[in-house]
């Protein structure tokens, strides 16, 4: 290792920030924003190191794996960290605005410690190389995420939060069971040991138990039931963090293990793909039926996560690396676009006063910038060029067509059609003016500085598609045979 230890810092720094924001509630917002910015800076420095060296490993305590725990940053880790940093920074900026004022003083006081703990946990997952350590990290993520879910304190949010706790704890316990079973077989828990393990039925079963736990945490159909209510009832910045970042933690672990596990059989991959296909269709139908804007956005998360699993499954044993890249791109695209969309939905709800989809076109107030943000985010989520979502879907379909998996191509197309349909319900409401009631149309009402952060995010989701080449090349850094 050369230079400062950016890996450890990017985990410990948010921890100190959380502590500071917790013991100094009045300065929480300033401390929080500063910490998130500093952590993002750490990630940028780390990106520089990784670009130069390929992969960076830090043996914590100097012991080295398998006795001790190692942190490892490679292209994919840094891409996830950068996603977290970028989305986190912009959500933080809009959180300052969303929680300003006396009425939300308590939410402001608790948002920052919880969000910074979440940041620490997420960064820890992306840098972790030890299965038990990943378990501890997803526990931190789960607790902080539940806290963020119930931040608003409404009855619905509390109820959704309780369901979320049950799902989350059950998922974590299943993961832990799998970890225990793997230790039983291998006597070690570091990635290198797990990769080198000879394939066996027992090993597959242990990984399957872990996968069920992770599927529960990332809300893969049919284990998604907790997600829509939890994401739809949280405060807007919390929803953005939950949908944009939190579900990606468990998703990343699946992606990471899938990349290392050539032992996965075609049958298992097909099963995962089928669950993903179920999510794409069921999530699409529910999003079409949703009556509230935030609920629609939450159901679209279920569908999009399904699509990511289709990407993971579609190439079978051949060409796993291609599907892996498609999945990684879709994760990045969804993280950015969904965070922007939830922030925009929150802004629209604040300005209009409700988020009933059928009454969107009756409002004389048109928060134009928030609506533009929503539309841009929808472009990336639907997968129109040149957005990042487009590149991800293109990679997915191209690979699937080359391998002759036409059914996965069909599923991707169906998912795209669904997303066009349900987002059109909202966009049509934005563009219709003939049903406006009460007062003259105040088209330019409801602009504010708070629209800037979500707009930047949504624009990034669209424009980053133009930089897809370098992004894919970066994700590839340190991947493959170079594992310790």
């Amino acid at each position, binding site marked *: *290792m050369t230079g400062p*230890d950016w890996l*450890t*810092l990017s985990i*410990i720094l948010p*921890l*100190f920030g959380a*502590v500071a924001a*917790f*013991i100094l509630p009045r300065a929480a917002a300033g401390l929080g924003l500063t910490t998130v910015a500093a952590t993002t800076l750490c990630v940028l420095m780390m990106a520089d190191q990784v670009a130069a060296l390929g992969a960076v490993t*830090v*043996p*914590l*305590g*100097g*012991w080295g794996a*398998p*006795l*001790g*725990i190692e942190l490892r940053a490679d292209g994919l880790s840094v891409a996830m960290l950068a996603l977290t940093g970028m989305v986190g920074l912009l959500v933080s900026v809009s959180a300052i605005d969303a929680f300003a004022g006396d009425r939300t003083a*308590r939410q402001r006081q*608790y948002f920052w*410690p*919880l969000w910074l*703990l979440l940041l*620490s946990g997420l960064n*820890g997952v992306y840098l972790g190389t*030890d299965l038990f*350590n990943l378990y*501890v*990290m997803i*526990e*931190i993520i789960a*607790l*902080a995420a*539940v*806290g963020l879910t*119930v*931040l608003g304190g409404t009855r619905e949010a*509390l109820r959704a939060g309780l369901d979320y706790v049950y799902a989350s704890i059950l998922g974590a316990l*299943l993961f832990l*069971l*799998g970890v225990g*079973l793997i230790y*039983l*077989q*291998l*006597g*070690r828990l570091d990635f290198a040991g797990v990769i080198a393990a000879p394939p*066996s*039925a*027992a*090993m*597959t*079963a*242990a990984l*399957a*138990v872990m996968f*069920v736990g992770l599927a529960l945490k990332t809300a893969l159909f*049919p284990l998604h039931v907790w997600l829509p209510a939890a994401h739809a009832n949280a405060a807007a910045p919390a929803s953005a963090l939950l949908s944009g970042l939190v579900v990606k933690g468990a998703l990343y672990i699946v992606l990471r293990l899938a990349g290392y596990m050539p032992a996965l059989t075609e049958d298992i991959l097909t099963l995962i793909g089928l669950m993903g296909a179920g999510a794409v269709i069921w999530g699409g139908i529910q999003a079409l039926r949703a009556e509230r804007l935030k609920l629609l956005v939450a159901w679209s998360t279920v569908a999009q996560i399904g699509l990511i699993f289709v990407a993971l499954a579609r190439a079978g044993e051949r060409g796993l690396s291609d599907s892996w890249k498609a999945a990684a791109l879709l994760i990045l695209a969804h993280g950015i676009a969904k965070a922007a969309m939830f922030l925009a939905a929150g802004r629209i709800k604040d300005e209009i006063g409700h988020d009933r989809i059928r009454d969107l076109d009756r409002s004389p107030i048109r928060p134009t910038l928030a609506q533009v943000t929503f539309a841009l985010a929808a472009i990336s989520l639907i997968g129109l060029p040149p957005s990042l979502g487009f590149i991800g879907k293109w990679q997915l379909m191209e690979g699937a067509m080359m391998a002759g998996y036409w059914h996965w191509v069909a599923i991707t197309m169906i998912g795209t059609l669904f997303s066009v349909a349900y987002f059109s319900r909202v966009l049509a409401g934005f563009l219709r003016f003939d049903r406006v009631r009460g007062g003259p149309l105040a088209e330019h009402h409801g602009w504010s500085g708070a629209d800037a952060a979500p707009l930047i995010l949504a624009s990034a989701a669209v424009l980053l598609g133009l930089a897809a080449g370098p992004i894919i090349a970066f994700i590839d850094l340190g991947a493959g045979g170079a594992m310790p």
Partner: protein
Amino acid sequence: MSDALLLFDLLLALAVVAIAAAALLVRDAFAMIVLFVVFGLLSALAWVRLAAPDVALAEAAIGTGLTGALLLKTLHHLRARGMAGWQPGAVAQRPVPRAVAWLNAGLALAVMAGLGVAILGSPLRVTGLEIAVAEAMPLSGVENPVTAVLLNFRAYDTLMEVVVLLSAVIVVWQIERGAGPAPAPSLGPVWQGFARLTLPAAALVGVYVLWAGAEAPGGAFQGGAMLAAIGLMMLLTGLYRPHPDHRGLARLLFVLGTVAFAATALLVAGGGRASFEYPPSYAKTLILLIEALVTISIAVTLTALFHGREPVALKGDLRHDP
């Protein structure tokens, strides 16, 4: 192994399973909690038989003692709020659709089958990290291998577990607040005398368990749980009443362990050493220092979790107070 011990182990294993089944099947909430506590104590015994005294101590103190107290408090809370006839069955008023029930059963069976395959397919004896631990012990600064793993070899995991506890108390404080008397069963004046007699002894035991952790089973989590028992006693007997003015101090005590642990991890780095790499000559001092501060944080945090809410004076709103 002698036959008598084998018989004992068999009986113990049977009892653990039977009590677990009984706890799931019994309809009365209080009986359920009592069975859960018995289950925990028997599990602790099982851990002793498995030669894992550290786990046994943690199971008895946290998994059984504190969790049991939390469950009893929750039951009291439910009954105080007019759910006196609360029964586990009463919650599921809406019948679960048959299809959902079958789907759940199918999924649960699939997971169980997976567990079965994984356990039956595992080799009987795998050398874990015992050899690596034994080799590194002289450099760890302590003599108890469990403490060496928790506070040196895998100190990062332990730091993050302390953070889990901190996250929990932050979430609890965020959800629930109020300054009135806690809706816990209050014990009569006789108990105050009992508390005054037993508290010093409990404090002594807690500190001993912490100190002994360097060479023998024990350590921060177990010691902290025992000290937390003192906190519970003080809350229940009314010897201590949480007050809004105490919040600042409470916050400092919650974060004390995390800050000391994380700061040490960063400060020892440099000069060729990685984060968390304690210089062997100072390792014992650092470990004991971290453990002592973490113990304080754990004790205070667990007590606060039992109290269950941020002590804030609410304007004329004493919700949840009977």
